[in-house]
């Protein structure tokens, strides 16, 4: 085990993938010489050349479309969209092209592309540089969506995404790039679609992903002080998501809270709650409670954004509701 950072783990995953497979290429805005807006691609152009690590113009639709075309023509492109807010400009290619190609082509071809993009608030980046839009993409048949919460998963999920024959959107969190964590000396891919028990517990389950994992763990610590033993599940993959792991945890604790940084309404949490209310109905001793951002754009000012983002106290309150 070595200690690394989330951003460095991404860099290492890209480095290892480029080294392992000559068909892997990277492109995006400022990913080359500048090393990426968050430095995730630092040094890669130097190591692998400007043909394989390309700076693109500010052309998100073309970036996403090029990934589709390159993937259909023998490469494994890893494209970057600088902020998740900008996927709005790439949506046709993601939703109408990448997601449907395999199906539309009668299953004869797949689209082995990866799109990396950071979401999340907490940096006073304002309403157009902070959104968590992953539920949109998870709603589209044909796309896969993963969202790592730790450096180890940032490495492992990205490697899995690049190896995957289908289009995978890797949603990173801007606030996590500097996060430290342990990673194997020679780390492996993390299978897409498998959750992880981040903290075992008996009394209630909190299901979450991405940066909210750390909020959930704080809440679990706080509740432990009061004798409430919370299990925290880190989904890691959102599409497909690990229904079996969530159901298994619910079957042990009989209480479920779903937490995410994204807007609560019509979100990933709504899907999980609806499924568990169905397949887990007999296991539930309390209503399923969702914790997410309020139904408003992400605000800029520090005080506003602090009030906006789901906090550990919100999770504590939600868990207490399930124990009432």
């Amino acid at each position, binding site marked *: 085990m070595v200690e690394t950072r989330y951003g460095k783990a991404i860099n290492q995953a890209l480095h290892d993938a480029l080294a392992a497979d000559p068909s892997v290429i990277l492109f995006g805005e400022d990913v080359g010489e500048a090393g990426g807006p968050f430095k995730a691609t630092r040094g890669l152009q130097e190591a692998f050349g400007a043909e394989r690590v390309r700076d693109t113009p500010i052309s998100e639709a073309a970036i996403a479309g090029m990934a589709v075309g390159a993937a*259909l023509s023998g490469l494994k492109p890893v494209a970057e969209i600088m902020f998740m807010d900008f996927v709005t400009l790439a949506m046709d290619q993601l939703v109408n092209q990448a997601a449907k190609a395999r199906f539309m082509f009668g299953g004869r071809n797949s689209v082995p592309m990866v799109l990396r993009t950071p979401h999340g608030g907490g940096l006073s980046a304002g309403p157009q540089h902070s959104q968590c839009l992953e539920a949109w993409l998870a709603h589209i048949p044909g796309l896969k969506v993963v969202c790592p919460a730790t450096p180890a998963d940032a490495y492992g999920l990205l490697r899995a995404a690049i190896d995957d024959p289908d289009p995978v959107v890797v949603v990173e969190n801007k606030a996590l790039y500097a996060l430290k964590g342990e990673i194997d000396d020679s780390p492996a891919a993390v299978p897409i679609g498998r959750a992880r028990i981040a903290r075992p517990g008996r009394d209630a389950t909190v299901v979450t992903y991405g940066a909210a994992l750390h909020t959930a763990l704080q809440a679990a610590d706080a509740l432990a002080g009061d004798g409430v033993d919370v299990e925290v599940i880190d989904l890691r993959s959102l599409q497909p998501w690990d229904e079996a792991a969530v159901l298994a945890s619910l079957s042990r604790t009989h209480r479920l809270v779903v937490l995410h940084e994204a807007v609560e309404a019509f979100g990933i949490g709504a899907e999980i709650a609806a499924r568990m209310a169905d397949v887990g109905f007999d296991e539930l001793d309390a209503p399923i409670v969702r914790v997410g951002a309020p139904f408003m754009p992400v605000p800029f000012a520090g005080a506003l954004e602090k009030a906006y983002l789901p906090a550990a106290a919100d999770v504590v309150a939600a868990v207490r509701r399930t124990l009432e």
Partner: protein
Amino acid sequence: MAREPKNDPTDRLLSLYEGMLTIRQAEERLKALFADGEVPGFIHLSIGQEAVPVGISASLGPADTVASNHRGHGHALAKGIDLDGFFAEIMGRDSGLCRGRGGSMHVADVSIGMLGANGIVGAGLPITLGSALAHKTRGTDAVAVAYFGDGALAEGVLHECLNIAALWALPMLFACENNGWSEFSPTDRQMKASLKDLAAAFSIPHVEVDGNDVEAVEAAAAECIAALRRGDGPRVLECRTTRVRGHFEGDRQDYRSPDELAGLAATDPIARCRARLAELGVDANRIDAIAEAIDRRVEQAVANARGAPEPSFAAAAADVYTAAEG
């Protein structure tokens, strides 16, 4: 169709004629099948525009890639797509190239470099760009062709693609079929700039050609594609052509003037090619034999499609993602 390069000028022209006629007869058959309710959904015919893909495809090989638009039957057939799979797809059968999941607007066969027709105006352009990037990155001399209409000039993504193709000197041919129409509106009411202006803005050589003259298209495309293979960067080939039918089958075309409609037949690239063949002294029987042979192949494809099973829902559901190994 994938024709061998012919050296004899008459043989070459005959081969172009056959290519155009294959598209024409296939589409005439689709037109009838549509009218009879055997083709569901809606179809956009390229009748009158056949010279463009046939002229261009004469310079393409199996490693080259094309992406197309909603009016894509000719692009696919000229690239050499299988006629049985083509009809079966458009008739919604399991033996269709896309197993009945795409239909007319999504005919594709990646194995022969046909990256798909497309229901989204302009969407084939960045896909072609990525394909051209792959050809260049892999160090082959393959080229990528995007077929698009004049209506796509107003889509922002075209401008992104022109810029990137020029910036990176990608082997991409921007093949515009300028038929003057964007659905039910004349394109000159939608675009201020011409494609020539746009190409110049991005420093891309622009070639304009009579898109109803297959020999002219072939010659212009051959030069453009040779430049792409040399690594000279992208080319814009603007083919002036004529949409003879409505935007889609069933479109009554009330918005076109009687004069325009009356003049359409005179633009027919196939009739022109036939006249040239006669000038070259090709026997009429020999020309007619081509039509008969195509007719037999088309009828066989239709019969095969009719006899093919309906698509499997379970197989469709299983193809949303690649099956996990093991």
